[in-house]
C-alpha cells in the first residue's frame, strides 16, 4: 500500500517533467485546498477567540461576596457616550491597603486619575478624540493591559475617586472583594453552531466543487498513465491508491499555503473586520484539536474528490479507459426537498401579517433551508432539460448547446454552489434593505435645534449642572425637565415636566406656554388620561412616590409623529399648580450658539467634575443610533457582497478549469475546424455560451429563490418588500464579468490548440 502511495507521489511531481495539464491540476488543487483551509482555520479561530474573550471576562468579573480580612474596593459603574461610542467608566476607591486591584492595572488610579483600555486610548489619541475626552472625568495616566479587557473593542476606563464619593451613592455603589470567577469553558457554543458552521459550510460547498473540478483536470492523460500501470501489473485498487496519492501532493501544498495565508491574515485581521469589530490578533488562533481535524480532513477531501472523479471510470490494462454507463439522475429527492421547502413556506400563510410567532419563524427558517437546498439540487436537472429543448441558433450557439447536452452536469454542479450563496445573499440583502428602510424615517422634533445639548443628571444635582453648563463657552441657557411617571391604576404614562423649550425638544407640540399640558398620542394609538393621576419619580434604583395630580380639562392632544424616549405626557410646571415633584432623573436641555458639537464638548468639560452625575449627549441622540444602524446595514451589505463575489470567483475559476479541460480534450477537432477556415471567434463564442448558459440559469434561479424567500419573511415581519436593485445589478454585472473573464482567459489556449502543430499526425 505504501509502495502504491509512493508511486502516486512520484507520478504527481512527474520527476520534474510535468505536462501543462498536470501542472495546472496540481496548482488548482493546491489553490482550492488552500482556500478551503483559509476558510476553515478562521472558523476554528473564531471559536477560540470567543473562548479567550469569555475567559478574560470571567477573570475580570467582580466578586462581591465578602471575604474575611479583605478591605473591599468601592466601585461605581456608569457610561459616558459620544455618538454611539459608549465608554464603561468604573469609579474606584480603595478602603484599605489590601483592597483588590482590577486585572490589567498595576495599581489603583488615585483620585482624579483615569486608566483607559487600549481601544479607548486609541480613540482618545485619534484626531476626533477631543469630544470623547470632554465626556470623561480626570486625567489619563495609564492603560489597562489586555488581561483587563474582554476584547480589543472594549471601551472602558477606571477612574480614581475618594471613597466618600462612592459611599454617598448608597446601594448604587459596589463593594468588590476580589476579581475573577472560575472559567468553565465555552464548549460548543451557540455562536459556533449557529453562525460559524453554516457560513463555513456555505463557503466550503463551492470550494469542494472547485477541488473536485481541479482533480479531474487532465483526466484523459492521467487515465492513460493509470492504464499503463495496469498493464504492468497493478490491480484496480492499487491504481486507485496511486490516483489518491497523486492528489495528496496538491492537498499537501494547499494545506501549507492555506496555513501560510491564515498566518498572514492574522497579522492584519484586526483592521479588516466588518461592523467595527476589533479583536486581539493573539486571540485569533485556532485551537489545536480543531487544527488536527482540519489537517486530517482536508487531504481526505482531496483524495475523496479524486476518487469521486474516478467513480465511473474503469481503468483497464490495454490502455482502454471505459466510462461506465451514466447514472440516471434520480429526481424524487430533489423534488422532495423543494416541495418540503414550499410546504413549510406555504404554512407561514396561516400566520397573520406581523405575527412574530415562534412557530411561524421556525416554519420560515426550515422552509428556506429546504427550498435553497432543493433549488440547488434541481439546477443540474433544470439545465439538462433546458438545453435538451434548445435547437437551432448560430454555429457557436449550436456548439455550446450540443456540448452541454453531452454533459451539463459538471457545469451545473459548479454553478449550484453559486446558486445557494446568491439566493441566500439576495434573501438577506432583501430583508436588510426592507427592514433598514425604516431607519431614515426618524425625524427629530423641531425644538431640538434650539437646545442641541442634553445633560442627564439627578434632581440633587440639577441646579449645579445648570450653573456649570451655563458657565461653558457659547451656552445661552439651561432648561431642566424632570422625568415623571403618571400612574392611573395599572396604566402608566411616561412623561416629562419642564418648560416649553425642553418639552419642544421632546416632541412637536406646537405653540406652548407655561400652564399647558400635552398628551402625545403614541404611534400605536391610545386615549388621553383623565381624572387623578399619581406622580412617581425614579431615583437611585428605586421608585419615588409623589403627589396626586388632576389632569386639566384643557389637556392638548397632539399627534407629533416620532417622540424621543416615547413620552406621552408633557407638562409645564404651571399646569401642576405648585405641586412638589418627586425626586427623579432630570434632563437639562442646553441652548447655545455655534457648532452644536463644539457646544456639547464645552458643556462636557464644564460638568465633568460631577462625573457620573452629569452625562452629556446630543438632544437628538436617536440620530446617533440611526447613523450607527446605517453603518451596520452598509457593513452587512459589504460583507454579503464580498462573500458573494468570493463564491462567484471560485465558481468562475471552476468554470475556467472546465473550459480549459474541454478545449484540451477537443484539441484536434478544434484545430481541424480552424484549419478549415472556421474563425476563432466562432469557437470563442461557443465557449462563451457554454459557460454563460448554466451561470445565467443559476443566477435567474437564485434571484427567483432569493426574492421568493424574502416575501414570506417580510410578510411575517409586516414590512414592505423593497428589492435592492443596485445590489442585484452589481451581482448580475459581476456574473457577466466572470463569464466574459473565463472566456477571455481560455482564449490563449484556444489559439494554441488551433495552431499547426496540433494537426501534425506523424
Amino acid at each position, binding site marked *: 500500500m505504501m509502495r502504491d502511495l509512493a508511486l502516486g507521489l512520484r507520478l504527481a511531481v512527474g520527476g520534474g517533467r510535468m505536462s501543462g495539464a498536470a501542472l495546472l491540476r496540481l496548482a488548482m488543487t493546491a489553490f482550492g485546498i488552500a482556500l478551503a483551509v483559509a476558510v476553515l482555520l478562521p472558523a476554528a479561530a473564531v471559536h477560540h477567540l470567543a473562548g479567550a474573550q469569555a475567559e478574560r471576562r470571567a477573570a475580570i468579573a467582580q466578586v462581591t461576596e465578602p471575604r474575611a480580612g479583605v478591605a473591599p474596593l468601592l466601585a461605581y459603574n456608569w457610561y459616558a457616550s459620544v455618538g454611539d461610542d459608549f465608554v464603561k467608566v468604573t469609579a474606584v476607591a480603595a478602603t484599605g491597603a489590601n483592597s483588590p486591584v482590577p486585572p490589567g492595572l498595576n495599581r489603583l488610579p488615585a483620585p482624579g486619575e483615569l486608566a483607559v483600555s487600549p481601544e479607548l486610548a486609541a480613540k482618545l489619541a485619534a484626531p476626533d478624540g477631543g469630544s470623547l475626552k470632554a465626556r470623561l472625568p480626570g486625567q489619563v495616566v495609564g492603560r489597562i493591559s489586555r488581561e483587563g479587557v474582554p476584547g480589543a473593542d472594549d471601551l472602558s476606563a477606571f477612574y480614581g475617586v475618594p471613597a466618600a464619593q462612592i459611599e454617598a451613592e448608597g446601594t448604587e455603589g459596589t463593594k468588590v472583594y476580589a476579581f475573577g470567577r472560575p472559567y468553565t469553558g465555552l464548549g460548543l457554543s451557540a455562536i459556533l453552531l449557529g453562525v460559524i458552521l453554516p457560513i463555513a459550510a456555505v463557503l466550503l460547498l463551492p470550494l469542494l466543487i472547485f477541488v473536485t473540478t481541479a482533480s479531474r483536470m487532465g483526466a484523459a492523460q492521467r487515465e492513460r498513465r493509470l492504464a499503463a500501470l495496469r498493464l504492468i501489473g497493478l490491480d484496480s485498487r492499487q491504481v486507485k491508491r496511486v490516483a489518491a496519492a497523486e492528489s495528496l501532493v496538491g492537498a499537501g501544498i494547499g494545506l501549507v499555503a492555506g496555513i501560510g495565508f491564515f498566518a498572514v491574515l492574522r497579522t492584519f485581521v484586526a483592521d479588516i473586520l466588518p461592523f467595527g469589530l476589533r479583536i486581539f490578533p493573539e486571540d485569533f488562533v485556532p485551537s489545536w484539536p480543531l487544527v488536527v481535524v482540519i489537517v486530517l480532513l482536508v487531504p481526505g477531501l482531496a483524495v475523496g474528490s479524486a476518487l469521486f472523479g474516478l467513480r465511473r471510470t474503469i481503468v483497464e490494462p490495454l490502455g482502454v479507459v471505459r466510462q461506465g454507463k451514466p447514472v440516471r439522475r434520480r429526481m424524487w429527492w430533489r423534488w422532495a426537498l423543494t416541495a418540503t421547502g414550499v410546504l413549510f413556506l406555504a404554512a407561514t400563510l396561516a400566520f397573520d401579517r406581523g405575527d412574530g410567532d415562534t412557530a411561524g419563524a421556525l416554519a420560515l427558517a426550515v422552509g428556506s433551508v429546504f427550498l435553497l437546498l432543493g433549488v440547488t439540487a434541481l439546477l443540474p436537472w433544470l439545465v439538462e432539460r433546458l438545453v435538451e429543448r434548445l435547437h*437551432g441558433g*448560430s*454555429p457557436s450557439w*449550436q*456548439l455550446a448547446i*450540443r*456540448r452541454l*447536452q*453531452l454533459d451539463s452536469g459538471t457545469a451545473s454542479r459548479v454553478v449550484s454552489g453559486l446558486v445557494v450563496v446568491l439566493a441566500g445573499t439576495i434573501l438577506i440583502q432583501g430583508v436588510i434593505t426592507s427592514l433598514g428602510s425604516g431607519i431614515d424615517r426618524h425625524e427629530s422634533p423641531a425644538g431640538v435645534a434650539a437646545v442641541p445639548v442634553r445633560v442627564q443628571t439627578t434632581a440633587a444635582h440639577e441646579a449645579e449642572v445648570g450653573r456649570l453648563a451655563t458657565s461653558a463657552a457659547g451656552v445661552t441657557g439651561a432648561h431642566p425637565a424632570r422625568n415623571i411617571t403618571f400612574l392611573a391604576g395599572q396604566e402608566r404614562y411616561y412623561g416629562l415636566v419642564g418648560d416649553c423649550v425642553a418639552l419642544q425638544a421632546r416632541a412637536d407640540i406646537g405653540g406652548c406656554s407655561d400652564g399647558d399640558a400635552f398628551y402625545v398620542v403614541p404611534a400605536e394609538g391610545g386615549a388621553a388620561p383623565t381624572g387623578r393621576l399619581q406622580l412617581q419619580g425614579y431615583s437611585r434604583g428605586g421608585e419615588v412616590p409623589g403627589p396626586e395630580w388632576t389632569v386639566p380639562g384643557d389637556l392638548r392632544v397632539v399627534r407629533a409623529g416620532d417622540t424621543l424616549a416615547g413620552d406621552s405626557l408633557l407638562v409645564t410646571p404651571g399646569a401642576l399648580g405648585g405641586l412638589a415633584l418627586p425626586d427623579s432623573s432630570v434632563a437639562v436641555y442646553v441652548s447655545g450658539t455655534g457648532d452644536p458639537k463644539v457646544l456639547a464638548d464645552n458643556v462636557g468639560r464644564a460638568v465633568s467634575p460631577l462625573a457620573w452625575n452629569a452625562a452629556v449627549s446630543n438632544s437628538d441622540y436617536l440620530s446617533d443610533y440611526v447613523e450607527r444602524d446605517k453603518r451596520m446595514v452598509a457593513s452587512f451589505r459589504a460583507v454579503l457582497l464580498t462573500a458573494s463575489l468570493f463564491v462567484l470567483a471560485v465558481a468562475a475559476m471552476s468554470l475556467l478549469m472546465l473550459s480549459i479541460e474541454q478545449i484540451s480534450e*477537443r484539441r*484536434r*477537432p478544434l484545430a*481541424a*475546424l480552424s*484549419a*478549415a*477556415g*472556421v*474563425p476563432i471567434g*466562432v469557437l470563442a463564442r461557443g465557449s462563451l455560451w457554454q459557460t454563460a448558459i448554466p451561470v445565467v440559469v443559476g443566477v435567474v434561479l437564485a434571484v427567483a429563490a432569493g426574492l421568493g424567500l424574502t416575501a414570506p419573511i417580510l410578510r411575517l415581519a409586516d414590512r414592505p418588500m423593497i428589492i435592492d436593485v443596485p445590489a442585484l445589478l452589481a451581482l448580475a454585472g459581476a456574473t457577466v464579468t466572470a463569464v466574459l473573464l473565463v472566456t477571455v482567459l481560455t482564449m490563449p489556449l484556444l489559439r494554441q490548440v488551433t495552431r*499547426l502543430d496540433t*494537426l*501534425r*499526425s*506523424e
Partner: protein
Amino acid sequence: MTTPGTPLLIGSGLHKSFGPTRALDGAALSVSAGEVLAIMGSSGSGKSTLLHCLAGIVRPDSGTISYRGADLVGMDDKGRSALRRTEFGFVFQFGQLVPELSCLENVALPLRLTGAKRKQAEATATEWLARLEVDGLAKRRPGDVSGGQAQRVAVARALVTGPKVVFADEPTGALDSLNGEKVMQMLTQAARETHAAVVLVTHEPRVAAYSDREIVVRDGHTVDRELVA
C-alpha cells in the same frame, strides 16, 4: 467553373523553417482543376508542411503560392481563413469531427459558417452523407461510429461546400486497409464528380495509387515521382 487541366494552385520556391529545422527548402508544385495529386515522402520530409502552406494554414518564409491568380502568401489571415472556408476542403488523419455534434451537424457546419440556413444546410449535408453511404449515421455522434465511418463523414464535410481543392493529410492513416480503400475510393470519386482537385499527403503507395500524379518531398525539395528511380 474551372476547366479541368487548368493550373489552379501553384506554389514555387517555398521555404519554411521551424527554429533550426528546415521543413521546406525550395519546394514547388502545381495542381490542376479536377486533378488528384499525391504528395509522398518519408516521415519528417516536409510533406505535411507543404500541404499546410498550400492550404494557407501557415505562411511560408519565402516563395509564392498562387490560387486562381490570387497571391496566397500576401493575403491576410482573415482572407486566407475565408478562402479555406469557401474554396478548400480538408480531411485529416483522425479526430477532426466535433465530438458533441451529430454526424449530420458536423457535415452541415461548414455550410452554416458560410451563412446557409440550418434546414438548407442539413438537407445538403444529408445528400452528401447518402453519397458517401453513411446517411444512416446522421443522428449519431462521432464517438458512436467506427473510424472508417467517421472518415467518410469527414470526407462529406470536406466536400459539402463544393470546394475547388480538397486537402487530405494521411486520410487513411488511422484505418485498416479495407476501410482505407473504401474512403479513398469515395473521396476521389466524389472529387472527380465535382471537378475538385485533391492534394493528398500520404506515405502509402497503395493510397497514392488513387492519384493522377505523384510527387515526392525529400529534405524539403519536391521531385516528380517519375524522376525518382
